[in-house]
């Protein structure tokens, strides 16, 4: 398949889907290559009695544990936080929890406001129409009027508070701290062909009902109807460039394992904050010996994860447990910088409901709470559906030594070098964690919980993969321009989480997609001068 397409998108996840849909109106010939396949609703774990067990098997969040043919291994031994993702149509949104906050206006101006890291070359106001467009496409439930944000209008009513949420609300009110129902992509009403959520309570390993807005059921059907050609089971090995330093296409392995070349006028990378630097580094050539688009040396550097610290306790009566969406509320009480604290920037609290019986038993056995022997039953009955937990979601600052490189030994099923992740939790983050954990314990106490425990950080909590090919106006200090084009290769664009300049302290997908739509819009506006 060597005839030249206009646009070749690599990766069919959150950002790739949004770009494909947006560019489709140009009627250009658009192809998307995705290494995984489609997941059918009946395959999701919540359809079977082994629904909890499969979180450790074929629906594990870690690609190293899941180890499907579509997955590539990641050496994350030198990181206290392990990478989690999904490789298939929908990308990691197939397994995401659908928590959908936007970055705050201040997140785009951290150098100006706080003297750390760098400002973004775009701001909240510029992205606002794309946030709104993305919300419409993804279908967002929530409640207007949150004092922590500029005005915005979710499409659907918020998720129920339930017993757990009411307890959280009472606790936060008693402390006088901000809380608000989360924006989520879980449909609370029928929305664009999606049925309203019926509380399967098992959102993360994939929603069998289709209430969760993963991009395989939001953007992709619309993009396919508009003529985008999505080819599954196609793993890209490298991006090929010519003597003029322009991308000419990609070499990939098709579903039968046959090596192929696909020529393209424009290449768009949407492989996430680990997959994208991996592919750029694997595309080194005589002209680009340090990896493609890497004259700044920043490809793979400044990886940000958002360390997640879970603080949990047990209430004196049963609350919602697993009988509703795992996430329901957020608090931005400590989100913005306060000069009185010993750290800059801030964190979000993300409030959870609970877990099912197997997860409760496994986690409590691992942390030593649940004994062996006769006592097991009594302690388990005192625990089931009583757990309440919240996460301290920390803004980690970009640090050059936190990075993605190529592992010298590890390879995927096609023999392509696999990524290696080196990451440490920075000093500013540590101070923030201490502050957040102390306050999370006060919240749990105010919610009437005892037996308080802390998991710092959540081990398999590397779900936000950001910063490894950052945006900027200065080619020496960034990989892509303020509209997503690589400084070094004028027909190569990056639209995924790797272009984040800083991380903020919220789940990033809403902002990743708004940025992707913004970049697509810029491309459409500049079609005549795209390569100038």
């Amino acid at each position, binding site marked *: 398949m060597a005839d030249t397409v206009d646009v070749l998108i690599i990766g069919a996840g959150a950002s790739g889907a949004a770009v494909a849909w947006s560019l489709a109106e140009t009627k250009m010939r658009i192809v998307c290559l995705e290494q995984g396949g489609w997941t059918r609703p009946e395959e999701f774990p919540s359809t*079977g009695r082994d629904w909890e067990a499969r979180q450790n098997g074929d629906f594990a969040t870690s690609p190293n544990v899941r180890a499907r043919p579509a997955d590539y291994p990641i050496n994350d031994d030198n990181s206290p936080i392990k990478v989690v993702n999904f490789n298939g149509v929908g990308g990691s949104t197939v397994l995401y929890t659908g928590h959908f906050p936007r970055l705050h206006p201040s997140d785009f101006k951290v150098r100006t406001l706080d003297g750390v890291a760098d400002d973004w070359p775009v701001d909240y106001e510029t992205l606002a129409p794309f946030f709104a467009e993305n919300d419409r496409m993804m279908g967002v439930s929530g409640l207007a009027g949150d004092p922590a944000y500029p005005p915005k209008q979710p499409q659907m009513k918020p998720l129920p*508070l339930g017993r757990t949420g009411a307890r959280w609300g009472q606790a936060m009110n008693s402390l006088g701290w901000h809380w608000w129902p989360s924006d989520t992509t879980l449909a609370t009403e029928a929305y664009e062909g999606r049925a309203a959520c019926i509380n399967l309570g098992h959102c993360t390993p994939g929603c069998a009902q289709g209430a969760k807005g993963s991009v395989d059921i939001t953007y992709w059907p619309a993009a396919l109807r508009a003529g985008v050609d999505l080819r599954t089971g196609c793993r890209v090995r490298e991006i090929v460039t010519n003597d003029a330093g322009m991308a000419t296409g990609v070499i990939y392995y098709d579903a039968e394992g046959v090596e192929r070349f696909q020529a393209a006028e424009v290449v768009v990378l949407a492989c996430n904050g680990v997959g994208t630097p991996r592919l750029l580094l694997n595309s080194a050539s005589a002209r680009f010996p340090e990896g493609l688009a890497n004259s700044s040396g920043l490809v793979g550097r400044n990886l940000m994860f958002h360390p997640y610290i879970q603080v949990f306790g047990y209430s004196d009566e049963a609350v919602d447990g*697993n009988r509703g969406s795992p996430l329901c509320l957020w608090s931005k009480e400590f989100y*913005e910088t306060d000069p009185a604290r010993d750290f800059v920037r801030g964190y979000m609290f993300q409030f959870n409901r609970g877990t099912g019986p197997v997860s409760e038993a496994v986690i409590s056995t691992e942390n030593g709470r649940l004994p062996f022997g006769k006592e097991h039953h009594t302690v388990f009955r005192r625990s089931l559906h009583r757990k309440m937990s919240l996460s301290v979601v920390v803004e980690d600052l970009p640090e050059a030594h936190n990075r993605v490189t190529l592992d010298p030994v590890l390879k995927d099923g096609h023999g392509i070098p696999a990524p290696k992740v080196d990451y440490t939790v920075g000093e500013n983050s540590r101070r923030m964690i201490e502050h957040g954990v102390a306050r999370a314990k006060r919240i749990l106490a105010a919610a009437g919980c005892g037996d308080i425990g802390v998991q710092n950080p959540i081990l398999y909590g590397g779900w936000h993969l950001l910063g490894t090919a950052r945006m900027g106006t200065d080619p020496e200090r960034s990989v892509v321009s303020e509209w997503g084009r690589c400084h070094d290769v004028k027909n190569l664009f990056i639209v995924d989480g790797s272009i984040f300049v800083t991380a903020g302290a919220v789940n990033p997908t809403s902002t990743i997609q708004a940025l992707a739509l913004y970049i697509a819009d810029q491309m459409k506006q500049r079609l005549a001068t795209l390569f100038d």
Partner: protein
Amino acid sequence: MTEQAVLSADERRGLAGFAGVMIPASAEYAVPGADDPAIVADMVSTLGRDAPWVRAALQRLDALAEGCFADLPEARREDVAHRLREEGGAALATLCRVVLQCYYRDDRVLLSLGIEPRPPFPKGHVLEQGDWSLLDPVRQRASMWRRVE
């Protein structure tokens, strides 16, 4: 994969012995132990990718028992199982998870906990709305996002 192919008869007895120490039957709650034959059969038939780790943990139990763990008298089995728990490690974590994920999906156990034995889909669950007036104090707060200009 047949049950025999996954674990040998001795390994299977070791698995049952460990499971029985972890979660013994309880007359008080009217539940079987995790060494109940149907629950052990579920573990064995669904071991899959966990088999190497479980086998490693069972071998470690035999090593700590200085013989066959399954043949030890009950009190000694408890002692050895607790020693393995103190040692920790990935093999033990897998063994415990395998026991727990089969125990806590057994119909008898779930019913004793007041849980309907079924997958979440398609019935889902009923979640009460909760009292939204709790949000009134927050609604009254002044805008708190940081202005950039």
